[in-house]
């Protein structure tokens, strides 16, 4: 199976082949406007052309901010943000995951939070009359995350 077929048979990637490169997504994209490293139209074109390695090991697919502007305006109803999620999932399956994502994953599995509770946050809460944050039920969370294979993200990181 070619890379393009692999993407379209992946959940979220089904609509990719509808793309006719009009560029509405690119001009709708707030990320593309500030960095040449990400352009949704290019990500789709490269995927259609089968540039597997460039897409999976590159940074581009991780730069999408999931604002869904592109998806809202695409005249071919390509589910662009979802295609990019599909590409990220395929990348992870192949062992490509940026450190920041695996750090988030570890933090979530260990502490139940992506962002550690800092003294700054506690002070802020106190100043506006909110109670201190309670510890999260990590055990239950871990069960859920392992059922969804989320824990794989962390394992990948360890194996690297």
């Amino acid at each position: 199976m070619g890379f393009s077929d692999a993407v379209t048979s992946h959940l979220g990637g089904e609509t990719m082949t509808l793309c006719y490169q009009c560029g509405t997504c690119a001009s709708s994209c707030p990320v593309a406007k500030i960095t040449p490293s990400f352009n949704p139209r290019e990500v789709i074109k490269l995927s259609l052309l089968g540039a597997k390695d460039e897409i999976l090991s590159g940074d581009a697919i991780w730069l999408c901010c999931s604002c869904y502007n592109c998806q809202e305006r695409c005249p071919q109803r390509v589910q662009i943000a979802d295609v990019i999620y599909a590409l990220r999932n395929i990348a992870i399956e192949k062992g490509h995951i940026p450190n920041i994502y695996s750090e988030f994953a570890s933090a979530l599995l260990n502490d139940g939070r992506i962002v550690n509770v800092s003294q700054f946050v506690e002070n802020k809460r106190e100043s506006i009359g909110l109670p201190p944050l309670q510890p999260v039920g990590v055990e239950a969370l871990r069960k859920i995350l392992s059922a969804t294979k989320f824990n794989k993200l962390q394992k990948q990181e360890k194996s690297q």
Partner: protein
Amino acid sequence: MDKARVGVFLSDGGNEFSKILDFAALTNYVKNVSDVVFVAKGNNFWEGKGLQTIVDAIKERKIDRVVVAETLPKLSEVKIARAVEDAGLNPYLMEFLDLKDHCAWPHQDTPAEATEKAKAMLRGAIERAKLLEPLEKLEFSALKSALIIGGGLAGMQTALNLADMGIEAHLVEKEPFIGGLAARAGRFFPTDDCAICIQPPASDVKTITHTSRKCVYRSGFTETPNLNILTNSKVVAVEGVPGNYKVTIEKKPRYVNELKCTGCDQCTAVCPVEVPDDYNAKLQTRKAIYMNIPNVHPPVYVIDDSVCKFYDCNKCVEVCPTNAIEFDQKPELITLNVGGIIVATGFKEFDASVIKEYHYDDYPDVITNLEFARMIDGFGPTGGVIIRPSNGKPAKKIVFIQCVGSRDRRYKPYCSSICCMISLKHATTIKTAYPDADISICYIDIRTTGREHEYYYEKARDMGIKFVKGRPTEVTRNPETGKLSVDVEDALLNRFLELDADLVVLAPAMVPAEGTEELAELLGLELEEDGFFKEYNAKLRPTETKLRGIYLAGGATFPKDAPTTSLHSHSASLKALKYLNTGKIVKDQRTAVVNEEYCGDCEFCPVTCPYGAISLVPTTEDHFVAQISDLQCEGCGVCVGTCPLNAIELRHSRPNQMLAQMKGLLSVNGTSKPLVLAICCSECGHTAVDSSGMAKMRYPANVRVMKVPCTGILQVHQLLEAFQAGAQGVMVVGCKSDGCHYEVGSQKAAKKVDLARTLLKEYGIAPDRLEMFNMVYIEGDRFAEAAQMITEKVEKLGPLQLMGGS
């Protein structure tokens, strides 16, 4: 009924097939079939001596059924039928079979088996022929008049064509003036001249000079004999049948007497009511009494009754020098009797305001191509000057945006096909008038496929018009300066551009005209998924509908440019003329008949009939029966297949005729394989069998082919009967499900086959013994493969044991 006297004529194709088929054995076999009184063998029976043999047998041996096994059956059928008719026998009492393509060629490796199959084929044909009844040729009168709905380019050309050729043509336009989109478009590609030209009417002595075209208003078009133009009018009811329609037209009051008004313009000077002028893109206002543009037809004013104050004001009445203003006019209903109807309702622009990010509805400087056309028209609201509607100042920077709603799966997935050329025409027109204009065209793909069209693209590049390959995401407006900016990625540069614009021109999709759905409902026509009228066959019959008598011209079927609209209109005229000119519609009687004793009180068949040929008529109180119009019935038999009471029969495909042939085909096996019956529709199914034979593809001789008009005729019990008659496997071969010659037949057949398979399973018979196939002529290889495949499958399943089987 007297016993039939069957004559059988066996052609060996110039001795060619004698090498495969044993004609002596066939002749002997046929002689012994009951009711066969005459048998002849020859080289051919479709011309010369051979044909004379048939004629003589009719005259001298008094045969009254003719069975011909020819080598060129499709060709010879027509010729022999004529000779049979001349000899005094009803030409429908004939049965043809093809021993070449359906027997000798495909089974040439097993000549003995081929001969046995040929016997079975002959037996089937003879048994069927015996049961055939004489049929009539039917003639229905057709009025030499036509209704043309829509007074745009297509409607005008069609009406003129028909009127010129002696057909009384009634051209109905819902607006107060004719001209349609064409009149608003101003200029046309590929000639760059006016949109309101027309071919000169043949009847006008002044224009009989064969000049290439004339301005509509001076062409004499409106004075063409046989042409009746009704403006401000709408079709509200249609009754009747092809050839004889009764149409009711509602004509709205104009409040101005068309014969008295001289177009002097004094009324508009005194009229105090001013409203935005929709016709001219609201770029100006007009009065309550108005004309769209000076050169319209009819060249008289109309009063807009939604805003006129009538007697409370009375100013126009006071100044009119010819007393043409008539406030008391009332809507009138006009009845027309016409033989044919031509739909020429055209298309319109898609409502661009639904694409919010382009701000068509809230930024006045965002306009559409049609509005832009009004601006560049010298007769238009700006006198040909390109302005910014927001402040009336000249527009220098102009950005066109293509595919607004077209090629957009959220709105219109199709390419509207003319918008690239419209924008190129507009861009080059302004650039010619204003060389310093800064023009950009944002496009996804530029499509210039017609003759001379690519030249526009070339010219535009040469003139310095900028092309940006990208579909803009948004049009923004600077709140202080009011200037627009178009946000787009140029995919070729891989760069984001913000194009400044004084004016943004959108190229909206083209969609069916207002009222298309209601009209389709009124006429009983189908619409395609895109909302345009569906033509009878997209490839071959683009201006006809499945209803004899109703035709399509111009953009009613899909957006079209002027050259294509002209072609289309001429085609529609010709097609309509086919019936209207002769004053009659001729067809044969192979139509469906209702047995009123069985029929009653269900509504299946009228709904199923693809041609609207069936109506329900009351018998006694609360009871009704189906009635089939011989004129509208096209002989597919879909109603037969649908009727739950077996109350409908199709002439020449009656159940007893089909069963007799089926039994005949299965009466002799002669092969070591189980008998398979292939029930093929007379169109694609049967031609696939032809083509496999013509290409000498091989399949086993146990496969027997039976022709039915359309697989839609098949009833579930008939499929089961085939097994009872001796088939071990049954193939149903129809047209592609979306390409049935009778619209829905092969889809209906597929459902019957499914149901029959379920029943077979219930009876403990492997459902795989029955299968539906869809193929076309060029797929003869698929037929041969399928025949082989089902034979193998049935062999593997072993002999079929039926309780009390025959």
